[in-house]
């Protein structure tokens, strides 16, 4: 018996080298990176839970967090589940959910969340370490076996408004993070740190300094010459990675101040863009800007979905993004060239996209002192929670928010560590604020089916090789749909809002689904 226990223990603390994450599809029982694979698919190759047996899903165990509104997307490796909360991480026994270790770091008393909650969206794993990004803007490496701190790196000073809520992205030898703070007048960046030592390898600033490429899209003389210094461009959602080309794909947030663009005439690169960065150096390979000169807080902070398909008879490497601005885009991921795009949700701000994917903006859609009604609202047609791509159905699944808003423009006074928003929004009285899970053809964005949601959700989507799509609702449901038709097949009332991304893994060779609901993480199995 002792021998068996020792063996289990040895398995539990195996290492997770880069090659295991690279070949995640070969061990579908694990979940080794934020989106399940580097391509951002949030797709599980497991196929034991199917439309015919999903009705039998039930709770195997639950884990209760100290803090509410949990957004974590767990990592599962070698019999252990790793979860995070704000400035907290824990290793859980995969059979019971009991803690194997727990780590926490005090949140400084003068820390402020400017424009978002006290949340964390998950850890990253590489070799013998777990990586956690903290609200007070440190990247922490924890010992996989004990939870002890191996190193910590100060990413930036939290006092002017920098923070981190995202799951880091671990690639070969490096750990990448981005920052929140787009409503506090930060200058955003993507950072890479040596996984072994915590030493910073590179930084890519999302707002170019005067003289750098892209700086021509910001004013550099007159009273607004310093607007780039507070230009925003946060990077608060985990990117994707193409190991073949060593390119990292990362979404960039809105320009600041959000709703008053008077101080920043120009396109304001690289805000509201997708950037492709060299994994070794952080050098910019290309960019594509979805919303030039944004004035609605439409961050382009989404998980980019990497896939390959034939375009007019030629096989191409592509990246798909369902954007907060209500348009769906397909780009060539080698060059950033626009391939296809269309609206996937109600929008009233653009006539459409031109041949190069630039929006044809309608007049009188900017925020105003008296209020301007525009769809979508500031949270967009979708936001940080993950979409899913199934290579089985070739469909892109996205949770859509159908809400319009009255946008207001106000003065914008920059003061470090305070709101630098220049306005805001108010709900349109007596209008529907609904949502939907939509299945889009991946290469066109054309809608194949939708499952309507009573309220706009804050939960991401998981698709599986078993032919299912999992997600959650604000009103507490975790549910499964048929991946081919959208037909609802199973639901569970969890008792709290589901504001997180689902994952799938195997326990003793049997497929499970995990998702957090408010302060509880549930694991479901047959």
């Amino acid at each position, binding site marked *: 018996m002792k021998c068996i226990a020792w063996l289990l223990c040895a398995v539990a603390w195996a290492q997770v080298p880069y090659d295991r994450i690279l070949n995640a599809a070969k061990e579908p029982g694990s979940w080794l990176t934020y989106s399940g694979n580097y391509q951002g698919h949030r797709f599980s190759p497991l196929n034991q839970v199917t439309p015919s047996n999903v009705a039998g899903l039930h709770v195997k165990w639950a884990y209760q967090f100290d803090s509410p509104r949990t957004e974590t997307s767990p990592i599962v490796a070698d019999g252990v589940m790793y979860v995070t909360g704000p400035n907290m991480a824990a290793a859980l026994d995969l059979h019971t959910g009991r803690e194997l270790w727990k780590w926490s770091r005090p949140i400084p008393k003068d820390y402020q969340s400017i*424009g978002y909650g006290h949340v964390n969206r998950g850890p990253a794993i590489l070799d013998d370490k777990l990586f956690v990004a903290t609200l007070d803007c440190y990247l922490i490496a924890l010992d996989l076996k004990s939870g002890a701190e191996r190193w910590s790196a100060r990413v930036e000073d939290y006092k002017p408004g920098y923070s981190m809520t995202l799951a880091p992205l671990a690639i070969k030898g490096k750990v990448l993070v981005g920052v929140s703070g787009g*409503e506090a007048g930060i200058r955003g960046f993507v950072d890479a740190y040596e996984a072994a030592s915590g030493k910073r390898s590179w930084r890519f600033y999302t707002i170019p300094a005067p003289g750098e490429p892209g700086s021509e899209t910001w004013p550099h003389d007159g009273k607004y010459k310093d607007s780039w210094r507070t230009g925003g461009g946060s990077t608060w959602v985990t990117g994707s990675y193409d190991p073949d080309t060593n390119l990292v794909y990362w979404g960039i947030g809105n320009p600041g101040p*959000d*709703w008053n663009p008077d101080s920043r005439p120009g396109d304001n690169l690289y805000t509201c863009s997708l950037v492709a960065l060299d994994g070794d150096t952080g050098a910019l390979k290309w960019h594509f800007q979805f919303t030039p000169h944004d004035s609605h807080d439409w961050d382009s902070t989404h998980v980019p979905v990497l896939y390959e398909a034939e375009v007019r008879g030629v096989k191409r490497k592509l990246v798909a993004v369902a954007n907060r601005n209500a348009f769906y885009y397909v780009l060539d991921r080698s060059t950033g060239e626009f391939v296809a795009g269309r609206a996937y949700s109600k929008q009233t701000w653009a006539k459409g996209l031109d041949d190069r994917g630039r929006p044809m903006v309608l007049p009188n859609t900017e925020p105003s*002192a*008296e*209020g301007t009604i525009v769809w979508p609202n500031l949270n967009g047609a979708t936001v940080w929670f993950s979409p899913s791509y199934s290579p089985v159905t070739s469909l892109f699944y996205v949770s859509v928010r159908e809400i319009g808003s009255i946008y*207001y423009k*106000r*003065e914008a*006074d920059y*003061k470090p560590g*305070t*709101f*630098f*928003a220049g*306005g*805001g*929004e*108010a*709900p349109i*009285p*007596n209008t529907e604020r609904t949502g939907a899970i939509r299945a889009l053809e991946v290469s066109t964005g054309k809608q194949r089916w939708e499952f*309507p*949601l*009573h*309220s706009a959700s804050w939960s991401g989507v998981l698709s599986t090789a078993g032919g299912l799509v999992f997600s959650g*609702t604000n*009103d*507490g*449901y975790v*549910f499964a749909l048929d991946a081919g038709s959208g037909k*609802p097949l199973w*639901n569970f009332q969890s008792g709290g809002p589901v504001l997180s991304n689902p994952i799938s893994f195997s326990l003793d060779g049997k497929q499970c689904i995990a998702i957090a609901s408010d302060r509880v993480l549930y694991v479901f199995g047959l």
Partner: protein
Amino acid sequence: MPKWVLLLTLAMTASAQVPDAATGKKIFESQCALCHGQTGTGGRGPSLNRSKLAHAPDDEALAKVIAQGIPPEMPGSWQLNPREVLSLILYVRSLGAIPSEKLPGDPVRGEQVYQSKGCAGCHIINGKGEGFGPELSAIGARRNGAHLRQVILHPAAALPEDFVYVAAVTEAGTVRGIRVNEDSFTIQIKDSLGRFHSLVKSELKDLKKLRGETPMPSFEGALSAAELDDLVAYLASLKGKS
């Protein structure tokens, strides 16, 4: 002035960004007046021209209400910067100088009108009455006289936020009533007798949202001018627990 406001005011003064009621007035007129009335005398939201506000006994509480709202009816305005919040507070407090609404009717006679016209068949006041109409024990703290008058005469034109009259068609028949709660999979309905029904949407033959409709009849022509004044005065006098 509370210490909290004083400190913030000093900080703002130091950076030459002094809050002022004129800025607050601009924000109020564009963002708050839709419910609270252009001069704060109320409407679909409560009047603010009073010395004490129920949810905001001090400026710190008022700042919190402005930032976070009062769900589900009042949205928060978390995007306002501290100077804008202070400006709005200054303006809202200045509304206290506006005289309170003078209503011509007699609330005692109004209560008799309320009883004689059968209002208690749908509404509850201080535990008396039954049915699916809104509870009215504190309606006078939430709505002004002009709004109450409009609701009595044209109820469908002044429906509360999120009010939906529904008809759910089941195998056994149609359940008609007010939506109490709804999610993506189920709906809970209160019928005219005050009974609750919990229904699974996928099992319904049809679910009609009767938007813009209300079971409350118009009392236009059913009340004399004096009766209407009295009924409005009675409802406006209902301020809830003292």
